[in-house]
């Protein structure tokens, strides 16, 4: 097989039969979106892992930089007032 430059990398997300959201399960090479979906079906749903597939070219995903994790996420750790835990709910409210 020649160069993989012409076979871009795609990230695969699968939603299982009992799930509500698509989860990232891995990646694969394909030349186009149709092939990416079929490859994902062949490679990642062989054992009935899912009922819905999303594929996205890896180049279209922007990820946060792990080196900036402290700056990005630490400050939220000690701001308890952002959580909705101080409301007193009346008994009449059944579905909150």
């Amino acid at each position, binding site marked *: 097989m020649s160069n993989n430059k012409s076979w871009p990398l795609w990230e695969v997300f699968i939603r299982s039969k009992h799930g509500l959201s698509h989860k990232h399960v891995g990646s*694969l090479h394909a*030349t186009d979106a149709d092939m990416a979906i*079929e*490859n994902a*079906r062949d490679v990642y749903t*062989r054992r009935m892992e899912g009922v819905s597939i999303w594929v996205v070219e890896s180049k279209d995903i922007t990820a946060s930089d792990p080196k900036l994790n402290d700056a990005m996420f630490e400050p939220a750790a000690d701001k308890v007032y952002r959580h909705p835990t101080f409301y007193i709910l009346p008994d009449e409210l059944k579905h909150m």
Partner: protein
Amino acid sequence: MNNSRLDYILHLADNGLILAQRLGDWCGHGPILEQDIALTNIALDVLGQARYFYQYAAEVDGQSKSEDHYAYFRGERDFKNYLLLEQPNGDWAHTIMRQFFYDNFMQLAYTGLLSSKDQQIAAIASKAIKEVEYHLKYSSEWVIRMGDGTEESHDRVQIAANSLWEFTGEFFVPTDYDNEMASQGIAPNLGSLKNDWELRVKEIFAEATLQVPQATWFQSGGKTGLHSENLGFLLADLQYLQRTYPGNNW
């Protein structure tokens, strides 16, 4: 007529077995990992269909034989698969073209078999139709990709179409058992499938910028046990172990 029905069921089973054996040869040799898995998945699907048909054949035959008997202990003259399926894999274009011609036909055949008067055949068809629709999508798209691809891929897939074309006539020429099955409402009339098959070839080839071969002479005989020399070698590989150690299992 039990003999005709048995022959027809074995024909359906043999197609799956021989194609699965051919596709299995690609295992570990695919051009890229994902396609290796795609082809072997298809092989498993058609082998699964073959097993259902062999199990049903054993029942209809009524001689307490197992599915393995039909797969491992029959010789070339007993096999009723299409000549197309025993052709060598060749390159990727060849394998894909063989697959496309067969998938195109089986999608029509299984659709017809959904209303078979034989309940078991209809049941197997209702399962197989979902598999073959995926196979047809897969092989059609690959024909288009290669036809409308690079100069090399276009040439290779055109050559594949030209050299496999002579094996596609066999789909539509009925044997005695085909005629018997059609008259009993167990199988569709083969002639009625020809137009749709040709239409889809025209459609896919047009998008693939390929020429539909115009030759009108076709090979035949596979369905009645008259095979190319390929089948002997294929069966030797497939059957050697079981014939050498009969009854052996994992």
